C-alpha cells in the first residue's frame, strides 16, 4: 500500500515541484542544457542570498539563467560565461569564492584552526609529560588509567583529528578528491563487470543477481539494473515483490515504452498470483493506457479507486488521472 502511494506521488510530483526553470527557458540541446545547469548551480541568487540561480524563482535569477543560456548558444565556454557574469556582479555571485588575497583568510581558515587546535593539544601533551607520574597508590584510589595509556589515547585522538582535518582541507581545496573518486568508481565498475560475466555462466545464482541489480542501481546504470531485476523476477515467479520491483523501476525511470514486452510478462505473473491487489491494478491500468486501451485502463483504475480507503490522500489525483484518460 505504502509503495503504491509513493509511486502515485512520484507521478504527480515532477509536475508540481520541478526546478525553478520554466519550459521556455530550457535549451533544446540536452548537452548545452546540462552545461547551463552546472553553471547556474554555481551562481548565487543575489536577492535570495543562499540559493543558486538554478533553484530560485526570483526575477533576477531567471534573467541570469536566460543570460547563461544565451551565452552558451553563442558558443562561449563555461569559464567565459562564469567570468562574464562575475565581472558584472562580483565574486559574491559565485557560491564558491575564488582564491585571491582577499579570500586567503577564508580559504586558509581550516588550516589555521587545525594549527591552533594542534598547538593547544601539543601544549597540553607537553605539560602532561613534565608532570611526575602520580604514586601508584594514588592511581589505584582515584581509579584513573595510568598516565601512559592516557598519553597514548591523547596521541591517538590527535592523530585522528589531524587526519580528519587534513582530509577536510584536501577536499575543500579540491586536491586529489576527483582523482580518488574516479579511481574508486573504476574499481567498482571493474568488479561489477566481473560479477556480470560470472553470472552469464550461472543464470540461476539468485544471490549473485540480486547483488548485481543493486550494484547497477548504485552506479545508475538504470537499464542494466532493470534487466537484472527482470531476470530475478523470472527466477522467482511465485514472489510478488520480485515482479513489482522491476515494474516500479521501469516506471520511475520513464522506461515504460522500451520495456513494454517485459512488463507484460511481469503483469501476467502478477495477475496469476492475485489480480485484485492494488499494485497490479495500478500497473495494469498504466500499460493499458500506454497501449491506448482506454476502456480497459479506466476499468483497472476505477477498480483501484474503489478499493482504496475513503480517506486516502491520493483519491483525488487518481480521479483526475481517470478523467484524463
Amino acid at each position, binding site marked *: 500500500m505504502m509503495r503504491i502511494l509513493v509511486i502515485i506521488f512520484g507521478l504527480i510530483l515532477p509536475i508540481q515541484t520541478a526546478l525553478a526553470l520554466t519550459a521556455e527557458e530550457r535549451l533544446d540541446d540536452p548537452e548545452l542544457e546540462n552545461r547551463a545547469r552546472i553553471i547556474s548551480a554555481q551562481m548565487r541568487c*543575489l*536577492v535570495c542570498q543562499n540559493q543558486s540561480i538554478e533553484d530560485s524563482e526570483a*526575477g*533576477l535569477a531567471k*534573467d*541570469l539563467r536566460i*543570460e547563461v543560456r544565451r551565452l552558451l548558444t553563442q558558443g562561449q565556454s563555461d569559464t567565459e560565461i562564469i567570468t562574464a557574469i*562575475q*565581472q*558584472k*556582479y*562580483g565574486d*559574491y555571485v559565485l557560491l564558491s569564492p575564488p582564491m585571491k588575497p582577499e579570500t586567503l583568510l577564508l580559504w586558509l581558515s581550516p588550516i589555521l584552526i587545525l594549527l*591552533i587546535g594542534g*598547538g*593547544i593539544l601539543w*601544549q*597540553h601533551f607537553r*605539560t602532561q609529560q613534565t608532570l611526575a607520574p602520580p604514586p601508584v597508590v594514588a592511581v589505584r584510589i582515584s581509579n584513573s588509567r595510568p598516565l601512559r595509556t592516557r598519553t597514548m589515547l591523547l596521541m591517538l585522538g590527535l592523530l585522528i583529528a589531524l587526519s580528519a582535518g587534513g582530509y577536510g582541507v584536501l577536499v575543500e581545496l579540491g586536491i586529489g578528491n576527483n582523482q580518488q573518486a574516479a579511481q574508486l568508481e573504476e574499481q567498482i565498475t571493474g568488479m561489477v563487470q566481473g560479477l556480470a560475466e560470472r553470472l552469464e555462466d550461472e543464470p540461476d545464482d539468485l544471490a549473485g543477481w540480486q547483488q548485481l541489480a543493486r550494484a547497477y542501481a548504485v552506479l545508475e546504470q538504470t537499464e542494466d539494473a532493470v534487466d537484472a531485476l527482470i531476470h530475478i523476477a523470472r527466477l522467482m515467479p511465485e514472489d510478488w515483490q520480485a515482479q513489482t520491483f522491476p515494474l516500479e523501476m521501469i516506471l520511475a525511470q520513464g522506461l515504460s515504452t522500451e520495456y513494454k514486452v517485459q512488463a507484460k510478462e511481469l503483469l501476467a505473473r502478477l495477475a496469476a498470483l492475485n489480480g485484485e491487489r492494488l499494485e497490479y491494478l495500478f500497473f495494469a491500468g498504466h500499460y493499458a493506457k500506454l497501449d491506448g486501451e482506454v476502456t480497459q485502463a479506466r476499468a483497472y483504475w476505477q477498480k483501484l479507486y474503489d478499493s482504496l480507503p475513503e480517506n486516502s490522500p491520493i483519491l483525488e489525483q487518481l480521479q483526475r488521472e481517470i478523467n484524463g484518460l
Partner: protein
Amino acid sequence: MRLRFALPLLLFLVLVAVSGLALYQTSHGKRDPQQLPSVLLNKPVPTVEIPLLQQGGSVFSLAEYRGQTVLVNFFASWCLPCRLEMPLLGSLANEGIPIIGIAYKDRAADTEQFLAEFGNPFHAIGVDTDGRIGLEWGAYGIPETFLVDQSGLVQWRHAGVVDQAVLETIRPMLP
C-alpha cells in the same frame, strides 16, 4: 598566565572586537550589510545601446554623456519605493545634473503614466524590457542609482531609495 588560557581568551576577544566593530558601523549607518559592493566602481560605464522610451526605435548610449557627471537611475512604475525618490531626483535635475532614467521591466504606457503622476526628472529615458541592460550594470534591486563621472567611470552605486541622507554622501562628488 599560561598559554592554554591566554590563547582561547585572546581569540575570543578578537572575535568580540570584530563583531562589535561591524555592529557599530551598521548601527551608525556606515555599513549596510544588505548593500553589495558594485564591481563597476571605478570602471567604465557599460555603453550598450539603450532604446529610448519616447522616440520610437531610436537608441542612445552613455558614451554620449562623456564629459559630464550624470546619475543613472533604474526605476519602474511597479516599484513603490521609486515614487519616493522622484521629488529629490527632480530637485537634483533642477540643479543641472543630468539624470538618466532606465525603465526596468516596465510597459511603456505604465512608465508614461508613472512619470506624469510622480514627475519626470530625467534627461533621457531608456527602456530595459527584459532586464538585459540591468544585467550589464550588475543591478540587483530597483530602485538602483549609479553616479558616473566626467571620464565615464562609475563612482558610486546605491541600491534602494535615494533620500536626503544618501544624497549627502554623494554631494562631494557632484559638480
